[in-house]
């Protein structure tokens, strides 16, 4: 499994990337939506993209819109990971095509819960 972690904060890329790495993901990072989109256009299609909302150059919502415009990328699972937490913002992101939405701050368990909802980790046997 390959994940693209998109956030302008490198601390946040390390945190999200690290949790995913522990679950066996390979990680590619991008500091904004445009950098991430360039990677997709160069032929890199991840299984999962974790997407911050507020970023310079291209924000996360625009990235989601761009990914959804290209049918070749329809298998990429899109999860917003952001401090935007108004009801209306979550609705906007889902309407644009995001599959899941994790609100910052979150614990590693909360990220793992979202992945298991998405069927992207083996369900933990307690």
């Amino acid at each position: 499994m390959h994940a693209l972690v998109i956030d302008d904060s490198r601390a946040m890329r390390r945190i999200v990337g690290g949790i995913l790495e522990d679950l066996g993901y390979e990680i590619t990072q991008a500091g904004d939506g445009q950098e991430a989109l360039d990677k997709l256009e160069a032929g890199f299609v991840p299984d999962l993209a974790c997407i911050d909302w507020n970023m310079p150059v291209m924000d996360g919502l625009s990235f989601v819109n761009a990914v959804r415009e290209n049918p070749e990328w329809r298998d990429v699972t899109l999860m917003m990971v952001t401090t935007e937490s108004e009801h209306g913002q979550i609705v906007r992101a889902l309407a644009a095509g995001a599959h899941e939405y994790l609100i910052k701050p979150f614990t590693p368990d909360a990220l793992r819960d979202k992945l298991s909802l998405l069927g992207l980790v083996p369900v933990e046997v307690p």
Partner: protein
Amino acid sequence: MSELLSAPVDGISGATAAELLPEETVRAIADEIWASFIGEDEVLVPLDGELPAATVSAWVGIDGPWRGRVVLTTSASAAEELTRALLRGRAPAVLDAEDVEDGFGELANVLGGGLKALLPEASSLTLPMVGAQPPASGPDEHLVSSLWRGERVDVVVCSVPLPH
């Protein structure tokens, strides 16, 4: 996002920072951030402490019918410790200035985002800035002070009359 930058709406635009985001609200949001990002057992104690001469601040602006700013301030050493805690086991052995700026800035960003979501009208957040001195605050500066591991951590919320 241009619709978020429309003309001020009566009521919110005239409200003070403390009316819009009272102390208990600021504490509730900060506590959630500390419990999930800094550590399950990490608490901000609502006590006064000494702020050292050399501090670091991280801030974000809120743009909407109400324009404001959320500033997080602590000692340089506490900002570094916070960044280390934020990264958990993933911090490099030596954190450079850029790491701390980035980690501490992200905490301010999450704090600002959590507070922004509680405003009565849709607003947007500016990208975080970090520096030794935050921009001068307006007359309604609203200070919420805490101790974390014995170090003072301040959150200041204030109105900003002009665009960021």
